[in-house]
């Protein structure tokens, strides 16, 4: 994964989630639709308005019938209607442009009709007050006129007038009106009538004039199309409400879809987060392991550094032991002859409580043994010194492969004995000298052997070291074990630095990678083949040196 793509892969879904969230908010705001609540309020206002309008009409009718004590109820209705229409106008004013467009015209029509109706109501009230007053006057004055007996004609006219007014109240026809007016004309300024009669005539004329007008106003009030206007407005509001509801429905559907997308993207992000956390944890584990391994290898490196010093320190006393041994060997035949002579003269001659004749064969081989063993020790010290000495990469020399192997094995002799009863060394005879650094090869072998020994499950499992001539003229060293083998999934990582399956058991994970690097620097190769449960074989192919045959093989068994 390239590092330029990495932030993009995180940012893109995060941006998408943010975008979805914004969309969701937008949709939720849209779906709330204050418009619907507004239209609801409007329907409420319309209802109370219509109720008041109905009451106004009813109160006008009651007033005409004389069944309302005063005009306060009509005034209340009027104020309530004006307040309700004000409320309606305010609600529509708060509404969206679309709603205003839809309701403006029916509302304007309603307002106009209301104005007309309220104006008609005021005229009706004015006329009705006069009408009722004149009727009251007829009721009050008519019968109270004290007419002298000789005014029989006038009295008769008065009677006819009363009945004519009564029937005019029932049905204000043109004929009755004419009759009343002609009666009033005849009574006007009648002798003996007086001011009361004149007032009566005036009220009669007013009555005839006002009554048709009042009833006309009443009819106008009754026929006012406010009910139809309210209905039209209500239907327009309902249509708007339905449209708003549809829109809100769309918003809700959009909201649902956006929620799903958001959920999916969040789930995806969570999954990514989790995988990243896991990767991070394993990386952390690896790092910790590597650090411990580094410490371990550092310890080994320190040890290696001191190894040289120790070997160096060992060499000088060993040199002294060797020269002492050779000195002893030199003087030994003379010493032996002298002792033999003494024993001939004294058969009971004893050394360290042992008789000379039984001590002599034991002592006989002692100087040679001493010399051989001190030489071997000296060799080992020299090998350790060379083994630990820092080398230039790819140091090339011709060397005897088998001999080098034998020397290296001395370092791990004890480990081998501890782990297996079946260590087999099969060294081919007559190999050409190898080219490279024998000590580096020794290191690699120690390493491979160490791995092989650790793979064993028991002492009966074998570890083999084999040398042979390879097919292309190279020299082949095989280290083979019958251990548990390497899991296929680990095969690919064998040569990675710090890769180890011997966690906590002394493995540093540096071995194979370093081994291969060391071999490659001298032109050699290292390959590992393994079958789980059967065993592992490490194969080293060395280049042969150009010329000069080496000495023959070492002893077959170690």
């Amino acid at each position, binding site marked *: 994964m390239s590092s330029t793509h990495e932030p993009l892969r995180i940012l893109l879904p995060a941006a998408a989630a943010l975008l979805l969230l914004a969309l969701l908010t937008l949709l939720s705001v849209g779906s709330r639709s204050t418009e619907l609540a507004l239209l609801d309020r409007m329907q409420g206002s319309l209802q*109370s308005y219509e*109720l008041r309008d109905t*009451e106004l009409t009813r*109160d006008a009718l*009651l007033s005409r*019938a*004389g*069944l*309302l*004590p*005063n*005009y*306060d*109820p*009509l*005034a*209340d209705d*009027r*104020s309530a209607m*004006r307040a309700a229409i004000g409320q309606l106008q305010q609600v529509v004013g708060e509404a969206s442009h679309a709603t205003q467009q839809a309701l403006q015209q029916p509302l304007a029509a309603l307002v106009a009709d209301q104005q007309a109706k309220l*104006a008609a109501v*005021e*005229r009706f*009230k*004015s006329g009705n*007050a*006069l009408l*009722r*007053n004149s009727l*009251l*006057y007829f*009721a*009050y*004055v008519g*019968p*109270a006129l004290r007419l002298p007996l000789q005014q029989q004609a006038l009295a008769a006219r008065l009677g006819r007038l009363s009945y004519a007014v009564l029937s005019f109240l029932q049905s204000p026809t043109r004929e009755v009106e004419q009759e009343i007016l002609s009666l009033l004309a005849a009574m006007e300024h009648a002798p003996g009538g007086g*001011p009361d009669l004149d*007032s009566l005539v*005036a*009220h009669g004329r*007013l009555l005839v004039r006002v009554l048709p007008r009042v009833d006309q106003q009443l009819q106008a009030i009754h026929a006012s199309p406010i009910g139809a206007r309210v209905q039209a407005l209500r239907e327009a509001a309902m249509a708007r409400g339905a449209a708003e509801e549809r829109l809100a429905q769309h918003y809700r559907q959009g909201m649902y879809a956006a929620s799903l997308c958001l959920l999916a993207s969040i789930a995806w992000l969570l999954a990514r987060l989790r995988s990243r956390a896991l990767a991070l944890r394993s990386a952390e584990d690896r790092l910790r392991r590597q650090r411990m391994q580094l410490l371990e290898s550092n310890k080994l490196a320190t040890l290696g550094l001191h190894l040289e010093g120790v070997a160096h320190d060992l060499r000088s006393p060993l040199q002294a032991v060797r020269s002492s041994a050779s000195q002893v060997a030199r003087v030994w035949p003379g010493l032996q002859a002298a002792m033999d002579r003494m024993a001939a003269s004294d058969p009971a001659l004893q050394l360290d409580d042992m008789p000379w004749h039984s001590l002599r064969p034991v002592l006989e081989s002692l100087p040679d043994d001493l010399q051989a063993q001190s030489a071997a020790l000296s060799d080992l010290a020299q090998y350790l010194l060379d083994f630990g000495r820092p080398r230039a990469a790819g140091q090339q020399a011709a060397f005897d492969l088998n001999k080098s192997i034998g020397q290296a094995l001395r370092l791990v002799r004890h480990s081998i004995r501890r782990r297996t009863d079946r260590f087999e060394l099969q060294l081919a005879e007559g190999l050409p000298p190898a080219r490279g650094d024998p000590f580096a090869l020794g290191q690699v072998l120690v390493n491979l052997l160490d791995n092989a020994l650790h793979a064993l499950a028991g002492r009966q499992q074998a570890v083999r070291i084999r040398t042979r001539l390879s097919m292309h003229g190279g020299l082949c060293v095989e280290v083979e074990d019958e251990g548990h083998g390497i899991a296929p999934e680990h095969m690919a990582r064998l040569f990675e630095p710090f890769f180890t399956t011997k966690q906590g058991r002394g493995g540093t994970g540096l071995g194979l990678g370093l081994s291969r690097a060391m071999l490659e620097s001298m032109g050699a190769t290292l390959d590992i083949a393994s079958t789980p449960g059967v065993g592992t074989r490490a194969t080293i192919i060395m280049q042969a040196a150009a010329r000069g045959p080496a000495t023959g093989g070492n002893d077959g068994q170690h």
Partner: protein
Amino acid sequence: MGIVANRSTKAAAVRRGLLAAMAACAGFAHGAAMARDEHDVVTAGVAAVEVIVPLPRSVPADPARAALGGRLFADPLLSRDGSRSCASCHPLEHGGVDGLPRARASDGRALLRNSPTVFNLAFDLFYNWDGATESLPTHDARVLRNPALMGMDEQELLVRLKRDPSYRQAFAQCYPGGISVGNVLDALATYERTLVTPDSRFDRFLRGERSALNAEELRGYGLFRSLGCIACHQGQNIGGNLLQRFGVFEDTSAGRRAGEPVDYGRYVATGDEADREVFRVPSLRNVAVTAPYFHDGRAPTLSMAVATMARVQLGRNVPEQDIASIVAFLGTLTGRYQGRELRAPQ
């Protein structure tokens, strides 16, 4: 709920009205007896008592806003030249009127109408003599703007009020929006609606205190009803809820003072031919202390006003004695404000 309650009381009123109408019909059938016997009239009047309704003893109002409105009402700051306040033409200690035939214009030239009282305007349906407005804040705004009255520019008013820390504080306490034209008008209207004069002797009579009216006043009440005054002067405010032509039976232009132009009344406001000479029927509450009378203040005394009304509106020539009784009755309509009976301007 409010509507339901209102409707039930209204239904009760209708039922009682029906009884009164039946009583009137009975009177019409039997004729003579009713007319001459004031006691009978009064008895009939008890049945129809809801033609006039007593004023409530108190009205609900936000006290802080009302107090602020009261301060504004009396503050000359509301007039452009600072020479007058609302209270200049409507002094509360004198029946809420200035006692002049016509209000004084601030420029001294414009010809205005008689100042109506500010008392009990909460129960009026219309404002002004021509009933041009039905909303109190609208009416107040008109008065404020009218160059002949306060001549105040709204922006200027706001500037003046905001300059005064005590107004700033009072408005901030009463209104979330602080000082604004709408809030000034609301405070004024709130205060003006509290100007109620309950407990007139007649209201006490209506509430059942029969001794509140003496015989003369009772007789006047009977005439008030039987002559037909009550046809227009009815309801809680004894008028104020109706428009009527001034001069039903007679042309009233003769009563105008010489040199004064004709006031066409509501026609000025509506432009409707039918509204010529039409004026608001004023409330008769406190009428005894609000002389002179009519839109142009043409009647200096109450008895002259009653005589004119009887003649031009009712087509009657009412005898002196009856007018005196009616005037006596009208005297019982004077109510009390802040515990004191209203008095006429000096």
